[in-house]
């Protein structure tokens, strides 16, 4: 029998680091059914005991205000969770205990993992780990996910607790010794409220049991009814008017914190709130004047490394690919394989998929940088630093986080907009985030700028990021003017302690992204390559010569080419790759390779062939720049569209977003080409 453990905890409590410490990279990432919240599952074995671990989204409480909270709560209540593992940041015990009290109230076995004990010791604080379980009625195990200490003891406790259920009974007086309440709730429950609330709980509980005899944990449901919890009120409609004259939520929160203060009083010593390291770093990073320049400097460095170091490693990848492609070509030829199959493998698959794989180093560095920014705690400072500027666009500083993540990948960036409270702010952020240039667009810039702009290649590529940001800002401003913005830009974000990023967490984060990229290369790009290859080799009259007129691809391209010629993109090959690029942006590059019959498009030789082929048809640097701008701004990819549909939950907004991006891309590319033509012709 496998023990089913749910990891729950506040954001920034180190929950994911602890989860990763057990599962390593062997975890299954999927979405919760129906929503785009990530669900991580992993398995772990300890002393012949099998554990199934599930990482729930980080939450501050278990109310039903956000999707994450609802999910966590439903999962724990309905699923077969054996033990709730509440990961607590012991260096800010006080706030973390609030969620702990709510979890204990759910009535399932709870084990507290007192994480970050190394920081607690570093600051000279002490936690009485004997008194704490006594007061809370659940085991509390000190661990450090980063230093991997206490992990075995924790899982041992979890296994033990799953078998024996509750074996610690709370021992505390809870302040109100003079309670006139007839029941001795103090022996049974950890969190006991004042007499007024306890009376109401009893009343509601009796009524719930009468109407729903099978209800699990009626006390919890009664408390939720007192809090006017919409979901529970809908699910268990019972007459409430005579008991419930108002919402008792504020009282319940207040009393929980009163109890927490008692616990802190008895269990935490040398409460040292000064954390000098964070204060010192914050003095610079959130400085009134220096905060913004420091941020811009950091981002400039990120892109500098992405392009320079990434390109340097990419050179080695290309050599490898060249060698591989030639080798496979020779092998297939010497084995007398069917010529069509040879063409499919070498010109279709290797040219398409291989061309994309060489960008792995650039993408690796970009995601590594984003992971470092997130894990160190800097990301939320960016929200503070950018709050003023974003305010002018009618957005809270928090909206800048999805935009920043958009440099990595539009899909998680659009999902991250969920942290914005106001629905209008969310919609606005979702509409502008796709303009932030994602890593899939990078191969296009790198390829075309190194083909056409020589020593200015890096500047040309970098200008795409600036144009993208500019378009995003203009869009937000325009929406603000049109009154479409919420305007209630309410920033509220936790600034976690700065910490040295955990190598293991970073590794897993980056590995997940790289895996996504490889999977994409193996599936979407693979399929798109085959389709593009087929479109080029077949026409209404059967098989045609590769890349020739008369193929289906040429026919589609030629029909649409006139439309794009004002933008300097009136070439059927370009049109075909742009259409194929909707599957994934990298496909624009892989298709170009296939279209021009170049097996390794990124190598010097491949590029020369391509430039020659393009130049012959009058495609110059200006056309290339217009193409880059178009690629920057048009539909990010099918996956991003799917995510926008899910997150806005509206076909209308999905279509608006698609049409808007196409329109802006066309307009900008035409502007670039037409204005450029005046200067360069």
């Amino acid at each position, binding site marked *: 029998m496998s023990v089913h453990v749910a990891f729950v905890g506040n954001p920034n409590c180190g929950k994911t680091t602890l989860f990763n410490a057990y599962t390593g990279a062997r975890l299954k990432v999927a979405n919760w059914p129906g929503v785009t919240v990530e669900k991580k599952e992993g398995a772990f074995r300890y002393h012949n005991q099998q554990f199934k671990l599930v990482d729930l989204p980080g939450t*501050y*409480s278990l*109310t039903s*205000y956000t999707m994450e909270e609802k999910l966590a709560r439903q999962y724990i209540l309905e699923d077969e969770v054996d033990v709730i593992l509440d990961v607590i940041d012991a*260096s*800010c*015990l*006080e*706030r973390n205990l*609030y969620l702990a009290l709510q979890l204990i109230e759910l009535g399932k076995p709870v084990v507290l993992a007192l994480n970050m004990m190394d920081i607690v010791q570093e600051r000279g604080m002490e936690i009485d780990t004997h008194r704490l379980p006594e007061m809370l009625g659940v085991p509390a195990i000190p661990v450090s996910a980063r230093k991997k200490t206490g992990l075995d003891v924790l899982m041992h406790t979890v296994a033990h607790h799953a078998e024996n259920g509750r074996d610690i009974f709370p021992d505390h007086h809870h302040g109100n010794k003079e309670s006139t309440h007839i029941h001795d709730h103090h022996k049974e429950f950890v969190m006991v409220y004042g007499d007024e609330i306890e009376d109401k709980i009893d009343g509601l509980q009796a009524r719930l049991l009468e109407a729903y005899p099978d209800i699990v944990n009626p006390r919890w449901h009664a408390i939720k009814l007192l809090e006017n919890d919409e979901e529970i009120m809908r699910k268990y409609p019972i007459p409430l008017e005579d008991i419930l004259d108002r919402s008792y*939520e*504020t009282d319940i*929160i*207040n009393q929980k*914190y009163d109890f*927490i203060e008692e616990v802190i009083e008895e269990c935490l010593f040398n*409460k040292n*709130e000064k954390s000098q390291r*964070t*204060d010192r770093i*914050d003095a610079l990073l*959130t400085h*009134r004047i220096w905060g913004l320049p420091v941020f811009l400097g950091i981002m400039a460095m990120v892109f500098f490394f992405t392009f320079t170091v990434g390109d340097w490693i990419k050179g080695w990848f290309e050599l490898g690919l060249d060698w591989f492609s030639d080798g496979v070509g020779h092998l297939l030829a010497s084995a007398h394989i069917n010529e069509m199959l040879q063409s499919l493998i070498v010109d279709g698959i290797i040219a398409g998929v291989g061309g994309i794989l060489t960008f792995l180093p650039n993408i690796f560095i970009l995601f590594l940088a984003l992971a470092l920014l997130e894990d160190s705690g800097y990301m*939320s*400072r960016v*929200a*503070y630093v950018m*709050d*003023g500027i974003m*305010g002018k666009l009618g957005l*809270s*500083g928090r909206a800048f986080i999805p935009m920043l993540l958009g440099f990595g990948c539009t899909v998680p960036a659009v999902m991250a907009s969920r942290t914005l*409270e106001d629905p209008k702010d969310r919609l606005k952020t979702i509409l502008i985030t796709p303009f932030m240039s994602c890593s899939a667009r990078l191969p296009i810039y790198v390829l075309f700028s190194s083909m056409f702009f020589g020593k200015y290649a890096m500047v040309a590529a970098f200008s795409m990021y600036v144009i993208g940001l500019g378009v995003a800002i203009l869009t937000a401003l325009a929406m603000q003017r049109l009154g479409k913005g919420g305007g*209630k*830009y*309410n*920033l*509220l*974000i*936790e*600034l*976690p302690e700065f910490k040295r990023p955990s190598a293991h967490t970073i590794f897993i984060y980056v590995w997940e992204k790289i895996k996504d990229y490889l999977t994409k290369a193996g599936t979407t790009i693979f399929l798109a390559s085959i389709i593009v290859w087929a479109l080029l080799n077949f026409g209404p009259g059967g098989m045609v010569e590769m890349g020739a007129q008369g193929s289906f691809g040429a026919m589609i391209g030629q029909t649409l080419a006139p439309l794009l010629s004002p933008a300097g993109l009136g070439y059927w090959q370009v049109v075909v790759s742009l259409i194929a690029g909707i599957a994934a942006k990298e496909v624009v590059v892989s298709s170009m390779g296939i279209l021009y019959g170049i097996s390794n498009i990124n190598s010097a030789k491949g590029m020369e062939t391509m430039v020659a082929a393009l130049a012959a048809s009058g495609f110059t640097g200006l056309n290339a720049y217009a193409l880059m701008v178009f690629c920057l701004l048009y539909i990010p990819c099918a996956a991003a569209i799917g995510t926008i549909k899910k997150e806005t939950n509206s076909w209308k907004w999905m279509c608006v977003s698609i049409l808007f991006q196409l329109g802006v891309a066309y307009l900008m590319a035409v502007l670039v080409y037409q204005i450029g033509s005046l200067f360069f012709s």
Partner: protein
Amino acid sequence: MTLLQGEIGKSYQVQEIRLQETTARRLQILGLLSGTRVEILNKKKNGTLIFKVRGTRYAIGKRIAEGILLGGEQP
């Protein structure tokens, strides 16, 4: 006075939260209740500020800061 009017480096006691219900609730869940002690750590010209409550730092926008009413300064 409100949190927005507080001075950097000083501590105050929260008297009342006058905000839209959902925002108020979120703050309460984080432990910002009447009587809680808060310390202002940093503030920008546009009113965005960083404060500390129960050992954790938060950044909040001007509109929220305006809705948090403070009692007297605390040592």
